[in-house]
């Protein structure tokens, strides 16, 4: 049983608080994703679970064991380091076999596991090379292989796919998912990549400045962010944020900004009353701004006319950079849109999926 439990964990480096009062329960066999901007404490969190960094305050449990004072080697974890940390004096085979040799596995078993992992990772032909004779992506796969062969209770992976090309990354993502199914290990996985965060994990943890912002399944984080930071961090292109004022008109709720005024669904924002006539942050994802040409029977109260500044064709869709008044925002629309730079275009704000945030605390208004 390898649930991992962080209980009020704080890590300070002198005056720098890298992780602040983190409480987090990672269930056995769970695939947990840790995301956040650079320097927010993701690696530090992993390193504390690994036992490489002393905990300033709090407790960490692996299984039911309090591991605060247990050295890394006795925690039965494997880690993929952000910067690989391959043993430069050993060839790829021995890099992967090192941990198993230390644990006195029989030679045949070591051989089997190394070859199996090498096959999954597509590095079978590199087994006799030294790390310095490998490309960045190959090194990263060796680092991954070194963790995989161990079949530990808990995997800690610090951006393990960051250096791979797009195609390989997709492939490795699938391999890791398969691996997780097969080995049934708990995985804590740090990434910067939106797609990895959304597709791989059971739950996502969003961190900022050492503080956990929100924990939840990917779709919940995506559709119900607790605050503006989480809303802006998850999703690509990022959610549009606009300064706006909340208005009431009879029973209807409106959001008014410099360049537009649209109606909000009352039911979605039940606690919004206290913000009436106050400034709020209006958030809407690019895919929730629709091209009127493709939304013929749209509610007229949701239609906004905007200037088209730039269009970015992505293939299947186009990112349209719009502006109206002081606000500018991105819409993600069908490739056949007629929006052209320099013209005006009518779009529909699908406010069913819009978000409001308090201007001061940036907390979601629901």
């Amino acid at each position, binding site marked *: 049983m390898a649930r991992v439990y962080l209980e009020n964990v704080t890590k300070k480096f002198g005056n720098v608080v890298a992780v602040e009062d983190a409480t987090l329960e990672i269930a056995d066999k769970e695939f947990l994703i840790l995301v956040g901007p650079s320097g927010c404490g993701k690696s530090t969190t992993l390193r504390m679970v*690994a*036992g*490489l960094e002393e905990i300033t305050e709090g407790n960490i449990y692996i299984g039911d064991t309090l591991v605060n004072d247990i*050295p*890394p*080697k006795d925690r039965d*974890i*494997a*880690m993929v*380091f*952000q*910067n*690989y*940390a*391959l*043993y*430069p*004096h050993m060839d790829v085979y021995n890099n992967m076999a*090192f*941990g198993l040799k*230390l*644990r006195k596995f029989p030679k045949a078993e070591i051989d089997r596991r190394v070859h199996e992992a090498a096959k999954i990772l597509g590095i079978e032909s590199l087994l006799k090379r*030294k*790390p*310095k*004779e*490998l490309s*960045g992506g190959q*090194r990263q796969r060796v680092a991954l292989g*070194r963790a995989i062969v*161990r079949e530990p209770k808990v995997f800690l992976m610090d951006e393990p796919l960051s*250096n791979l090309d797009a195609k390989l990354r997709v492939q490795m993502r699938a391999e890791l998912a398969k691996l997780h199914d097969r080995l049934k290990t708990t995985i804590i996985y740090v990434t910067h990549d939106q797609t990895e965060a959304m597709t791989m994990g059971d739950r996502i943890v969003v961190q900022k400045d050492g503080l956990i912002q929100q924990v939840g399944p990917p779709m919940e984080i995506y559709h119900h962010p607790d605050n503006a930071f989480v809303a802006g961090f998850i999703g690509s292109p990022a959610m549009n944020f606009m300064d706006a004022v909340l208005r009431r008109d009879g029973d209807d709720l409106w959001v008014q900004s410099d360049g537009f005024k649209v109606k909000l669904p009352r039911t979605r924002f039940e606690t919004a009353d206290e913000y009436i006539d106050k400034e709020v942050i209006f958030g809407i994802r690019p895919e929730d701004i629709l091209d009127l040409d493709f939304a013929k029977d749209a509610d007229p109260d949701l239609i906004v006319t905007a200037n088209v500044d730039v269009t970015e064709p992505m293939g299947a869709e186009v990112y349209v950079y719009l502006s109206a008044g002081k606000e500018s925002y991105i819409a993600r629309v069908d490739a056949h849109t007629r929006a052209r730079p320099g013209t005006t275009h009518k779009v529909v704000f699908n406010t069913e999926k819009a978000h409001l945030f308090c201007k001061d605390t940036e907390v979601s208004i629901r």
Partner: protein
Amino acid sequence: MLKSVSIHLVLIAACIVAVYPFLRVVSISLRPGSALLSTSLALIPPGATLENYRTLIFDKDFTIWLWNSLIVSGATVLIGLLLAATAAYAFSRWKFPGRRQGLVFLLLTQMLPPGMLLLPIYIMVVRLNLFNTYTGMIIAYSVGSVPFSIWLLKGYYDTIPRELEEAALVDGAGPLTTFYRIVLPLATPALAIAGLFNFMTAWNEYMMARVMLQKASMFTWPIGFQKLRDQFTTQWGVFSAASVLVAIPAMLLFLYSSKWLISGLTLGGLKE
């Protein structure tokens, strides 16, 4: 092309400058006794003979001196590396009270001119009954070699990324295993340099040996050589033969250790 030619010319000139004196010594060592003071410049002298070598090895205590030197220098190297490799690791990796002061102190010991230490060490050695012993010599030499090696090795350890050790810790190695499976193998170039340097220092040392060794059976070769000169008249042929022979272990050591002096050993472990 021109560049390669000029580089070669310079290298050839440097070789001649370096090797010529040695060849002269070889040539003198081969001269028969009658031609000792000959001014001939022939590398292989007329009537070349190994007589001087025979005299040296069978009629003098040369093999004993060589043996003594080997024991003392070898032990100095081993003890020096053992102590320095571990101490330097502590200095490089751990924060402990007195770390900075310790490092500075070690540096200070290196600043005292060796001559100044002669008397105190002599007195200590006599008091400790280590006069005329290997132990005494080894301790005296290690006093100089260990601090130097600690500094050298600490500097090198500092360049070995910590993540490599952390990876080993996570992989299941204890601190000791990490040290000898990861850190030491990566530090071989520095270990080789420290070993080589300490060996050469001990091997060629004269002043300390002169003070500490009185018994002929304990002489190291530099002292032995002096005796070679002092007896009746100097036998330059024998002397030259001895010079040639003592150069051999040093040369072998250089050749052997050059295989460890590889640069870039820690490359490839980390990103970038």
